[in-house]
């Protein structure tokens, strides 16, 4: 067997000095409260279940590494979503070689999951357009259109000004318009 699919079964060490039971409880809390949202974001961007699971693990590992600041966030979920989005977009950027693109098409065909109800169809539209814009515009588009954050919230989350966010969204809309006019 290879490690791509086989899980290991170990207790997470957690914070220094934290008892194993506490560490496990803490991890279970992360799993239950945030696991689906983070995994959903990773799956949405990467379109590959295995990659998404790896990426999710990376995100939570980062959260545990910076647990104090993570806990101090007014919305730990928003922080996790931001980290997951950034991490996954970086993965996509690293995988732009033609070979990877062919593999991705294969895996997308196998693994793409339909969220079902049409209320989420905007997600799919944004996902299809992501490859056509730069990294920052990708993040802006996801947080605005998928997370449904406001301009101000996106600007604060990404450390950009509202006009910059608005400009990025305009660029994204222009790209979408060009695609649909073809």
């Amino acid at each position: 067997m290879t490690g791509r699919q086989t899980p290991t079964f170990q207790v997470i060490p957690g914070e220094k000095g934290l008892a194993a039971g506490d560490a496990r409880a803490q991890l279970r809390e992360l799993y239950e409260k945030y696991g689906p949202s983070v995994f959903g974001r990773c799956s949405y961007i990467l379109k590959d279940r295995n990659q998404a699971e790896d990426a999710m693990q990376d995100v939570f590992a980062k959260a545990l590494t910076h647990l104090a600041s993570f806990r101090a966030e007014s919305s730990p979920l928003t922080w996790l979503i931001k980290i997951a989005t950034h991490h996954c977009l970086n993965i996509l950027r690293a995988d732009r070689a033609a070979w990877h693109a062919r593999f991705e098409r294969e895996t997308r065909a196998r693994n793409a999951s339909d969220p079902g109800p049409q209320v989420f169809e905007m997600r799919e539209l944004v996902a299809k357009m992501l490859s056509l814009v730069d990294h920052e515009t990708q993040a802006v588009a996801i947080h605005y259109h998928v997370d449904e954050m406001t301009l101000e919230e996106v600007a604060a989350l990404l450390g950009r000004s509202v006009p910059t966010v608005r400009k990025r969204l305009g660029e994204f809309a222009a790209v979408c318009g060009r695609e649909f006019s073809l």
Partner: protein
Amino acid sequence: MTLIENHETPSSHVAELALRCYRAGELASEACAEVERHLATCPACRAKMRILVEEQRTFEREISFERFAGGVERAQRVPRQRPRRAWVFGLSGVVAAAAVALFLVRVSTPGHNRSKGGSVEAMARIASASASAQRSAPPGSQEVLEPGDRVRLGYKTADPRYLAAISVDDSGEVSPLYPETGPAFAVSIALDTVYLPDSLEFTGAGRERVYLFLARMPFDLETAKQAVKSAYQAGKGDLSALPNPAFAGGQDVFSWLFRKP
């Protein structure tokens, strides 16, 4: 956080992220009450909530807590500074290609069963857990892996081929690596080394033999798996003495034997 957003549609709804925060218990009591009042009167947002509830169920069904905990622990122990797929090359593309060229192997190696016709080559790279050290592994070699070592397979081919990679362990369990199901991947001419996406981390104890097939004719993964199973049986389970698996289609077969930590 803005709870009721109104920037895209004429009607007001709870933003998706706000709904997620609500479910995670992150909203203050007033905001919570606001969401609940809205949910009571908005079928669209209730539908969104149902999707999130179902998402939770699906997640917990597909990824158990133990699996999640193990994976996070592993990721924490071996932090990936870069995305996993990028671990092979820390150098620029040109420098990396030159470096890899030093490790290319000749086709007439013990781990290579050659078909007639164009030239194909294969190679494996092994990266340590910290990705600070890398080494090459020519086909036919036996490699001892340390905990956290990851393996990546690559190839070159002078003509179009069909590719699949499969492994078999001491117990005879056959695992498809590339692809996981279906027909072998069609690969075009690659005069420079092309590495397969993802690196492989072997789990468990004992040994694992990895085969890389590059065939002239299309073939199905099941065909290759059967060939590997037959080879395992013919070799009486001794991974160091398995005959080369073969099937119709004129394939080049490369293999490596890994001893797992």
